[in-house]
């Protein structure tokens, strides 16, 4: 099916962002309105497309639009063309929908910032790039969006870059992403070299013939890309610092959408991973590691946003895990992605609203007992909380349990290990989220009296409410009669019913619930019974300390890459001057020296000149003799 309205999805926000950037201060008065309208309209278009899709039979729901031939050299042909199928429509709606809400939220949240227009410009740019990412019909088009969102996130993290630390955080994020991008570009190269095309359709078609080696290589490189963008182990380090950006950014980019691009990439590339089991396994393992990693960090963070960031990391770990489980898991990975989109965004907005009320205090130890002051925030945040820890019937319950279940059923020791990891993760999640809840809303007030906590304006709480609704209902909707699974079926081949179930769904749910309850209980014991100290206690176990320091991820990177890199750069700089340029200068000096020495023969004595002539003559005689005889 051909459609010609897809492009507007992207063009609208892109256009508005361009307008906002170019018109400059003149647009300050109406910038945010335009900036909010653009994704809004895109959302409507998205809905229209969805309606169209529903109207069509399952097979021809995908629509494409060829804009123009982008790069065409020899056999390397890439069109700038878009493709909207069942998978991308989910993302389109998530991005534009949640995006719009967050735009609305930002109008109020950023009202005091005199750069609000620029903020909206960036947000729009992000929306456009993200839409391109999910709509591109080839890896190269995806790559454009891929780096585009990277740029937008860089700009937004560094939005308050007058703070050096924030600027650094932005740089860190961009570079970490660049490493991922390297993976993606390598994947594209391999794909082109081996299959002569870079479009999804083309590669899907050829994947069958390609050797496992090639496919594994592509798979691994794609995984690298995913880890970069989705803050998965080992490229997770940037996400924590990324919280330097304004809270709406954290909600939209670093919770709901951009960081989930990795999941999209893997699910989108299902045809590669299904044919390359090793790569797939690697994906699952990375997912498992990260979900534990994030969860552990989450338990020790006092900064509310960092805690949420850690949980994001962990939740995406779940998604990657799901995606790594192959056909059985794709649908649930996406499902969890969507539900997570709702509740995590909601919680971030909640956190934002709390900070708004507590004049930008982020340390949870300085909160406490806020539920009376911010009732709505409390309510919405609470719902999100219930969703994330997976209490039925909230969204998280459906999506997460499904992943755990699939993990267990993926067969063999692998299944058991992954499943246990997922279960354990669920428990820890419950623990640290409860901790957040308690520290923030329960207990007695620990803030000094300068702060006057107050509920946020309607523009802020309305989006929160809507998202809360989403986080309550979405899971139920998606699983109702496996609707989402069926919906996605044409994109990701469904596997025949998972062979020999290890655990029945019910069992999994019960196990999970038990663990969750333990987690909650533990947290309640630790933080409800005795009052929480405002200063983080120093006399804590080594594990806590390490966890506070993000499990030493930064120390690791700095020791292994950053400092040696700097040293190398410095060393090379010196070497360049000393060795290479030195050699050149040396030659020059040598020449001069020789010249001067030879010049000494010119001693001014006519007799020595005569001597030269005489010797010359004799020399000539010698040579001529040597030659002739």
């Amino acid at each position, binding site marked *: 099916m051909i459609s010609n309205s897809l492009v507007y999805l992207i063009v609208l926000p892109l256009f508005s962002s361009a307008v906002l950037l170019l018109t400059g201060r003149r647009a300050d008065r109406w910038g945010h309105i335009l900036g909010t309208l653009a994704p809004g309209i895109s959302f409507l278009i998205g809905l229209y497309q969805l309606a169209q899709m529903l109207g069509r039979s399952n097979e021809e729901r995908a629509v494409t639009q060829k804009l123009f031939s982008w790069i065409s050299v020899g056999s390397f042909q890439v069109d700038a063309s878009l493709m909207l199928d069942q998978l991308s429509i989910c993302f389109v709606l998530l991005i534009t929908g949640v995006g719009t809400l967050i735009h609305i939220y930002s109008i109020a949240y950023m009202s005091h910032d005199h750069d609000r227009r620029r903020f909206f410009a960036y947000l729009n740019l992000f929306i456009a790039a993200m839409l391109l990412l999910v709509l591109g019909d080839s890896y190269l088009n995806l790559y454009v969006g891929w780096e585009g969102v990277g740029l937008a996130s860089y700009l937004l993290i560094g939005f308050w870059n007058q703070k050096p630390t924030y600027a650094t955080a932005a740089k860190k994020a961009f570079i970490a992403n660049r490493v991922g991008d390297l993976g993606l570009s390598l994947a594209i190269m391999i794909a082109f070299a081996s299959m002569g095309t870079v479009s999804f359709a083309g590669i899907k078609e050829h994947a069958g013939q390609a050797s496992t080696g090639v496919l594994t290589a592509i798979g691994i490189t794609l995984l690298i890309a995913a880890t970069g963008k989705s803050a998965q182990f080992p490229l997770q380090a940037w996400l924590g610092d990324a919280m330097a950006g304004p809270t709406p950014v954290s909600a939209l980019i670093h919770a709901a959408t951009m960081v989930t691009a990795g999941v999209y990439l893997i699910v989108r590339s299902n045809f590669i991973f299904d044919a390359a089991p090793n790569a797939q396994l690697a994906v699952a393992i990375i997912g498992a590691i990260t979900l534990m990693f994030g969860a552990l960090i989450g338990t020790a963070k006092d900064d509310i946003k960092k805690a949420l960031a850690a949980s994001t990391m962990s939740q995406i770990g779940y998604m990657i895990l799901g995606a790594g489980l192959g056909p059985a898991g794709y649908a649930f990975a996406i499902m969890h992605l969507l539900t997570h989109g709702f509740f995590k965004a909601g919680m971030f907005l909640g956190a934002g609203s709390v900070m708004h009320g507590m004049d930008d205090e982020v340390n949870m130890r300085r909160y406490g007992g806020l539920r009376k002051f911010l009732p709505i925030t409390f309510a919405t945040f609470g719902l999100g909380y219930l969703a994330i820890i997976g209490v039925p019937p909230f969204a998280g319950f459906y999506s997460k349990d499904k992943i755990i279940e699939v993990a267990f059923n993926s067969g063999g020791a692998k299944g058991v290990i992954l499943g246990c990891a997922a279960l354990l993760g669920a428990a820890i999640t419950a623990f640290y989220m409860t901790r957040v809840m308690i520290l923030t809303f329960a207990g007695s007030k620990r803030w000094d009296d300068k702060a006057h906590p107050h509920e946020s304006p309607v523009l802020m709480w309305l989006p929160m409410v809507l998202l809360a609704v989403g986080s309550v209902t979405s899971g139920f909707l998606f699983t109702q009669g496996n609707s989402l699974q069926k919906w996605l079926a044409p994109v990701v081949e469904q596997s025949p019913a998972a062979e020999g179930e290890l655990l029945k769904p019910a069992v999994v749910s019960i196990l999970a619930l038990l663990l969750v309850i333990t987690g909650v209980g533990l947290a309640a014991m630790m933080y409800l019974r005795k009052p929480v100290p405002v200063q983080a206690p120093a006399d804590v176990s080594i594990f806590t300390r390490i966890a506070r320091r993000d499990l030493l991820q930064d120390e690791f990177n700095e020791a292994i890459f950053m400092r040696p890199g700097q040293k190398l750069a410095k060393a090379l700089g010196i070497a360049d001057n000393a060795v290479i340029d030195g050699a050149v200068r040396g030659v020059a000096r040598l020449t001069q020296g020789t010249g001067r020495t030879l*010049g000494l023969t010119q001693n001014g004595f*006519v007799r020595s000149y005569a001597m030269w*002539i005489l010797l010359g003559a004799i020399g000539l005689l010698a040579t001529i003799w040597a030659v002739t005889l």
Partner: protein
Amino acid sequence: MTTFTTPSLSYALLAPILIVLGGAVLTVIFEAFLSKAIRPLVQLSVTLGTLVLALGQLWRIRNESSLTAAMGSVAIDGPAILLQGAVLILAILGVFLIADEDQFTVQAAAIPGSQEERESIQSGEKLTEIYPLTLFAVAGMMLFTISTDLITLFVALEMLSLPLYLMAGLARRRRLLSQEAALKYFLLGAFSSAFFLFGAAFLYGYSGSVSLAGIYDSVSGGTGNSVFLLVGIVFLSVGLLFKVGVVPFHAWTPDVYQGAPTPVTAFMAAATKVAAFGAILRIFYTAFANAYWDWRPFLSVIAIVTMIFGSLVAISQRDVKRMLAYSSIAHAGFLLTGVIALNKAGLEASIFYLFAYGIATLGAFGIVTLVRDSQGEVTDLSRWAGLGKRSPLVATVFATLLLAFAGIPLTSGFIGKFSIFSAAYESGNKSIVVVGVLSSAIAAYFYIRVIVLMFFTDPAEDGTSVTIPSNMTRLTIALSFVITIFLGVFPAPLLNFISSMAIFIR
């Protein structure tokens, strides 16, 4: 008892030389009888007139060619015409420079700084002996390029050398240096011409004939004692190579170039090279052509050594005239590659190169005469700093000429280098070409150094200034500049003319 036949001379063909000699005699007479007041002007105009006249005559006979112009002791052929023409043109331009009396002592005989010298300066005397000397030298040079037997060669050699010895000693300022230059030039010159003569003797002994043709025959015939031939070639070469100043016979060049009055330096640097190389080309291309197996090796060695030595030593020079002297040594090396090539291309290239180089040299030294302070010329490079600021025009011209020496495209130097190297390469002497290329890279360094000095260094406030050139000097410089550029951009006419002429006749 042989019957005596009167020698038959074809005066038309010899006319150019005869005119010059006549002019020379005339100037000598004027020197004796004219009053101080009018002498300089008359002498100058007579000299120029003579040269121009000779040039005109040369043009009229340009298509003639004969071996019997003077009983077989001179050959009038294409190269002869070209080389004589070159000598004459360079001489004319040179005379323009020489006309600047301020350069010359008024009483060569007076002791430097003595009473009588001062008197003669006050009495406003002008030195005019320079003109006859110049004319004799020119005549000698012209004869040198066309003579085809050993006697004439030797006579011509002395005829061009002796006046130059004297001219080198006529500087007005720094007379001690000037006289020293004269002494060195004379002693070494005489020394080398003794070698030349000795070599000539052995060649005569080898072939039993004094004519180059005769030597050629016996070389190709293979008759005669080859030892005599080798000794002859070597010693003759010593005498010739001394004149063009290649290592190891170069030692006089820097000293004499520096000590002699700059106009004389210009004249001899340009014209002598043409004459000497003219003779070398003629001798090696005609007489020794078939013995090239013997002489090519040592000429190649000399060429290589010379190119490298000249370029290297020039780097460390602090005096502009010495610097140019060493550069001329390097160029002599480049020119030798043309001789070694021993093919028509080589001959054409050499002639073109000689002409282009001579013109540029005249211009360069002409500019040197302009840079002065109260004590006269300033040749110390360090005091040339910032010339580009003080008088951009002069500096630009000088820079252009230096770039021509360095062989940068769009200057005559580049065409010359290219043609001479390609000729050498064609003759299979690849190594020489490589060395030549490398040494011109080195050479580029010190030319550029001077340019940097003139343009990018700030002037030291020491009263160094550029005098307003006399019209004639200006003319010389302007012409050499124009010709240098023109030959760089449109060399075709000259090249065609040369290639249509450049065939030696035996």
